[in-house]
């Protein structure tokens, strides 16, 4: 295994459409994510922050630039290898939950394991372990649609966590939650980072959430226009942010 499990993107470019309707989502972005780090990608909608996350998570391929994951060139990987990498090393948390309705909480959580081809018994054991960790084990047999928003997002985190990933990509993880519930979900994510060393890449426009991360990458019009680092000790979030652009 490589010593440094780094996601290293250099001069990434991505555009959608062609001709007059061509839209340059990313225009040369370089970003390295180190293992165990928490990185916030901050920007307005349309800034290209989600596109950047998709490229880093190998959900999409850049038009130009290179992306190395754990020293391997992502462009050289086969489709199957990319699928396996996402399945085994990455977890995903989305704003809209994307839970499968009419399917039990446990089955929702163990979906990545099912895709990985792990047997039913092992799936159940690992799924229950994760649900216990998230204090949702009493809801295991319930349908996902019966849960509250906060519970749903915890199920989503459970699903992202169930395959013991190295990196969790979260796209507006608290966007659909009220402040208190959002806070709880944030705590869970940062606990995972602290206790299990899981790297977090969080896309958000929420300054407070961004401030809890080690690093903040500010994106505007497809380029990084500012990058800040939170001091190791908690000295108040606002002191760390010295950007001038209104990113909220």
């Amino acid at each position, binding site marked *: 295994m490589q010593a440094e499990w780094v996601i290293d993107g250099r001069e990434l470019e991505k555009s959608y459409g062609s001709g007059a309707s061509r839209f340059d989502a990313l225009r040369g972005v370089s970003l390295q994510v180190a293992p165990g780090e928490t990185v916030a990608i901050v920007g307005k909608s349309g800034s290209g922050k989600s596109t950047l996350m998709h490229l880093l998570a190998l959900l999409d391929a850049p038009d130009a630039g290179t992306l190395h994951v754990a020293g391997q060139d992502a462009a050289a990987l086969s489709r199957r290898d990319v699928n396996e990498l996402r399945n085994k090393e990455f977890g995903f948390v989305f704003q809209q939950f994307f839970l499968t309705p009419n399917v039990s909480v446990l089955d929702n959580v163990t979906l990545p394991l099912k895709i990985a*081809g792990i047997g039913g018994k092992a799936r159940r054991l690992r799924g229950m372990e994760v649900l216990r960790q998230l204090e949702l084990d009493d809801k295991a047999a319930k349908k996902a649609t019966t849960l509250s928003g906060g519970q749903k997002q915890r199920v989503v985190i459970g699903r992202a966590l169930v395959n013991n990933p190295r990196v969790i990509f979260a796209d507006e993880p608290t966007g659909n939650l009220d402040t208190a519930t959002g806070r709880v979900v944030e705590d869970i994510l940062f606990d995972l980072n602290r206790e299990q060393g899981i790297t977090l890449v969080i896309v958000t426009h929420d300054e407070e959430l961004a401030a809890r991360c080690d690093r903040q990458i500010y994106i505007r019009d497809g380029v990084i226009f500012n990058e800040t680092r939170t001091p190791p000790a908690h000295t108040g979030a606002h002191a760390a942010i010295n950007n001038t652009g209104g990113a909220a």
Partner: protein
Amino acid sequence: MRVTDLVATAISNTFRSKVRTTLTVLAIFVGAFTLTITTAVGAGVSQYVDTQVGSLGAADVFIVTPKADDAPADSGPVEYDPATSGAAAGGNFGPPGATSALSDADLTTISDTDGIQSVDPIRALAPDYVAADDGTKYEFTINAASGVTTADLTAGAQLDHGSSESQIILPDSYVTPLGFASDAAAVGSTVQIGITDVLGAQQTVDATVVGVSLESILASGAGANAALTTELAAVQSAGIDTGAARYAGATARFDDSLSPDAVLALQATLADDGYTANTVADQLGTVQTVITGIVGVLNAFAVIALIAAAFGIINTLLMSVQERTREIGLMKAMGMGGGKVYMLFSLEAIVIGFLGSALGAGVAIGAGSILSNVLSTGLLADLPGLNILLFEPLSVALIILLVMAIAFLSGTLPAQRAAKANPIESLRYE
């Protein structure tokens, strides 16, 4: 993803949208039900014809009739010619419209043909009654074609056409009325056949019962061997020469070691001489062709219903793919390959197809068996041995497989759409 998980997921996905699945399954149900029933009717009737008639036919005999006049339908009546014209051929054999008869000269021509071993004319005999020793007389008929058929015996033996003894095979319905204790008891006894000659006087001829047969639809009446028919014909004509003998047809035995090609060649030779020569198999073939044709038309309707149902499957799955765009995107984001997504949706189509066809075939078998039983004791009671609906396990299995194959093909388009979906666009889909 494991194959077992794929199948299990496909099955549970099928039941997620119950109303839609039920309606699609119903459409397939109708098609599969119809196809199962029509196939069973075809199998049932074919089997009846095979067992009732096929076993009766001797393999080495032609039924020879004069070739039908090739007169166009709109050219009016054919002019009478004493040399060739005769009474219209009647009876069970010969094509409709055969207006010529065979003369003794014809019989000689036929028997002189290479490969033909013997020729017997089919005589029109009109016996009045049959009676046993106790004297009660019963009306009865002699099957003119008994020279070529092999009776479906319940007791005794087949007719010996080489014997000089007058032999008869009685239909089983005559056994008890004639006063015999059983089918076997009738064998070996002598019965009297009453016949009116051309002068109006009633004569009797004695015949020995050599066997008892089941009635069948195409060979009704008693069977008589050559000696008996000859004797009856002699008695009927009362020794008077009624002019040149004319026969509706003749039976010609050919060498049973001939290959099928040689038999065809022989038929062609006879056709050149102006005769139509058919084996019993040929005549059955016509019946079978008609039955096959009817069943084919019925099956075509069932297949049309299935094609309509196939569009139902396409529609259902397209809606399903549309509805589950985000779910598909999520599964792909989590590393599920396009091939597996394709398999998942194809399997869902196959599950729908299986549900519809298994239900359709099952209900068809259940309802059909009841119907078949009711009919065989009611409407079709006169046709013993006819099982109007015959469900063959192999053909039922084939129908289910066919429907599943149609369902799979229907699922191709939606499954392809799902497999090609871009995970990011799918996840962004609102």
